[in-house]
């Protein structure tokens, strides 16, 4: 436990140190907003990957796999597919266009006074929704490894991130995030590989892939924080208890929202029914894939490349770096099923990555591996939170409050600190609330607004401001309405209707595209050739 604290302090301290070093480079406005567009492809690729691999990737994929089964393994596929599409359609043109922020792009490509404000409010909404879970993750992780109160982790991460972004801006944050990518890959890969070598393969195969439920191998007592309704798979009854006593061979009772599955059911990435049914998988792939394309903190990264071709090369490297990372969450899901099945009873499946090393390899080695994993998780919260804060600070200081260059720099720094307060307050106010709906909403908004805006804005000269605005509003309204309907109706996510309502991209994105095209066709845009040339003419030629 002390080891874990030391590892977390080492990683946060190194991040702060690199951030402070980056401050020396952060002198101009361009440094703060887009790192002076001077980041080389390898640094930028590591920084993008570092920013992108959030708590959802580091802890969430393995946690969902433990909870619901191997169908969760489609998540990384969708995340990475979104990146490939960004490379194909958006990376180079967006960089060439030379904007500072997404609202900047929206207004320059589609001249209308309301474009900038509309795009800016969507950026703030998405970034805010996505920032809260990162901070909550930090609170929960620190509590899991040190027993510190929940608020300590939230406050520490908020402070460090605000400091790094406020002082170093994009230029400083880029180096911090590149460092954090390597921390994360090391922290997830090394323990996974060492554990597999130590164990010589996977134990408890009947519960993993066969026809068995996870069962206690020896008598054990599981204490819960507070009495919870648990379902006992051996008898099928549900009781509210505060403590569970299991004899050897008893199946682990499951917390609310978890279904007891045999190894065979659990380990199928695709199944006849439930979460593995093909329609749910396609809905998940579409939602993650389209949502990734519209995440503002990812898009802003393309602006930091020296030119369009470098933006393409960066993105290819990102695909490689993400692929390396995503090989490993599945290892923790499998080991967690074998070594930490009590998480089914406590319901704390999201902590599986943090708990597996010590459970699978008791003793000092396991403790060291657990400390490494905890440090990686902290790097995940911090890097994603930094990226989101850069996009919030850039948008507020550049797009919402116009003004002179000098004042803009000061404002970027003030907004980085002030902008952290609302998400941090929300994270502090909701310690026990499941806020995964916020992440789903952020993805759905990104998919139904910026994804069509970018694709049509870059490739279709006839797009007009009115069309784009109508499409974004329609997409956002439909996506929000469907998520709200699913929440109010209490629809189960395991049905086709529930899947569509919680991941509305499959419906809202076509609606957004249709609205953009239909409204744009009513009247041709003016002076579009210069904008199209700026997007597509290769650099040395462009004026």
């Amino acid at each position, binding site marked *: 436990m002390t080891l874990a604290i030391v590892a977390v302090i080492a990683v946060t301290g190194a991040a702060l140190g690199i951030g402070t070093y980056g401050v020396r480079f952060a002198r101009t406005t361009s440094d703060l907003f887009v790192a002076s567009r001077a980041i080389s492809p390898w640094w930028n690729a590591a920084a993008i990957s570092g920013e992108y691999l959030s708590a959802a990737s580091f802890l969430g994929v393995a946690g969902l796999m433990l909870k619901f089964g191997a169908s969760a393994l489609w998540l990384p596929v969708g995340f990475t597919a979104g990146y*490939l599409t960004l490379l194909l359609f958006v990376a180079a043109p967006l960089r060439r266009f030379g904007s500072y922020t997404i609202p900047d792009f929206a207004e320059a490509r589609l001249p209308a006074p309301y474009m900038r404000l509309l795009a800016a409010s969507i950026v703030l909404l998405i970034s805010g929704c996505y920032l809260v879970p990162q901070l909550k993750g930090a609170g929960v992780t620190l509590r899991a490894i040190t027993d510190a109160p929940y608020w300590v982790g939230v406050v520490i991460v908020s402070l460090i991130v605000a400091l790094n972004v406020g002082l170093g801006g994009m230029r400083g944050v880029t180096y911090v995030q590149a460092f954090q990518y390597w921390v994360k890959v090391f922290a997830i890969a090394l323990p996974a590989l060492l554990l597999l070598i130590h164990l010589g393969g996977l134990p408890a195969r009947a519960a993993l*892939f066969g026809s068995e439920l996870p069962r206690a191998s020896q008598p054990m007592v599981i204490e819960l924080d507070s009495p919870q309704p648990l379902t006992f798979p051996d008898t099928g009854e549900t009781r509210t208890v505060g403590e569970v006593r299991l004899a050897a061979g008893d199946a682990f009772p499951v917390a609310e929202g978890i279904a007891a599955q045999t190894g065979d059911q659990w380990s199928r990435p695709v199944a006849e029914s439930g979460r593995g049914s093909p329609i749910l998988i396609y809905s998940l792939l579409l939602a993650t894939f389209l949502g990734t394309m519209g995440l503002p903190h990812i898009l802003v990264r393309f602006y930091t490349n020296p030119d369009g071709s470098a933006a393409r090369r960066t993105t290819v490297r990102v695909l490689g770096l993400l692929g*390396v990372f995503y090989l490993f969450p599945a290892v923790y899901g499998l080991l967690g099923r074998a070594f930490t099945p009590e998480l089914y009873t406590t319901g704390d499946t999201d902590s599986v990555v943090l708990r597996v090393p010590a459970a699978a390899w008791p003793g000092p080695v396991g403790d060291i591996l657990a400390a490494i994993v905890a440090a990686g998780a902290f790097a995940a919260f911090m890097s994603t939170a930094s990226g989101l804060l850069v996009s919030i600070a850039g948008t507020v200081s550049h797009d919402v409050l116009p003004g002179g260059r000098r004042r803009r720099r000061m404002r970027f720094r003030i907004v980085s600190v002030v902008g952290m307060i609302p998400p941090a307050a929300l994270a502090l106010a909701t310690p026990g609330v499941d806020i995964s709906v916020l992440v789903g909403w952020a993805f759905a908004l990104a998919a139904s607004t910026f994804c069509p805006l970018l694709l049509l804005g870059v490739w279709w000269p006839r797009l007009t401001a009115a069309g784009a605005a109508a499409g974004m509003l329609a997409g956002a309204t439909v996506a929000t309405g469907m998520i709200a309907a699913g929440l109010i109706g209490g629809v189960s996510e395991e049905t086709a209707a529930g899947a569509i309502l919680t991941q509305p991209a499959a419906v809202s994105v076509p609606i957004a595209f249709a609205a953009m095209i239909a409204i744009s066709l009513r009247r041709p845009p003016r002076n579009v050739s*210069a904008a199209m040339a700026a997007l597509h003419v290769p650099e040395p030629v462009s*004026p």
Partner: protein
Amino acid sequence: MSLPSEDLDRATPHAAVYLRRLRREQLRLALLSLVAFGGAIGALPLVLYLMPGLHDAHLLGVPVPIWLVVVPPFPLFFFIGLLEQRRADALDEAFRDLVE
């Protein structure tokens, strides 16, 4: 077959023709790559659904469907990305050669 750079600067109709051609070629390339990876990734759930027996085949003690979801999509993404980047840069290069 050449494009004086003043034409490009002043966005003459002559330059617009060349530019539209470049844009269309880039778009065709991007759509082709999208179809390639969309087809492969889109087919995977269906293949696993239609062949449930695959689950009984194990590789290193882990069922084959898990391997298929965890490993091959990522190198596939990388190589499609690499190919597209090279082709797209080549198209840009060809356009540069046209400009005097």
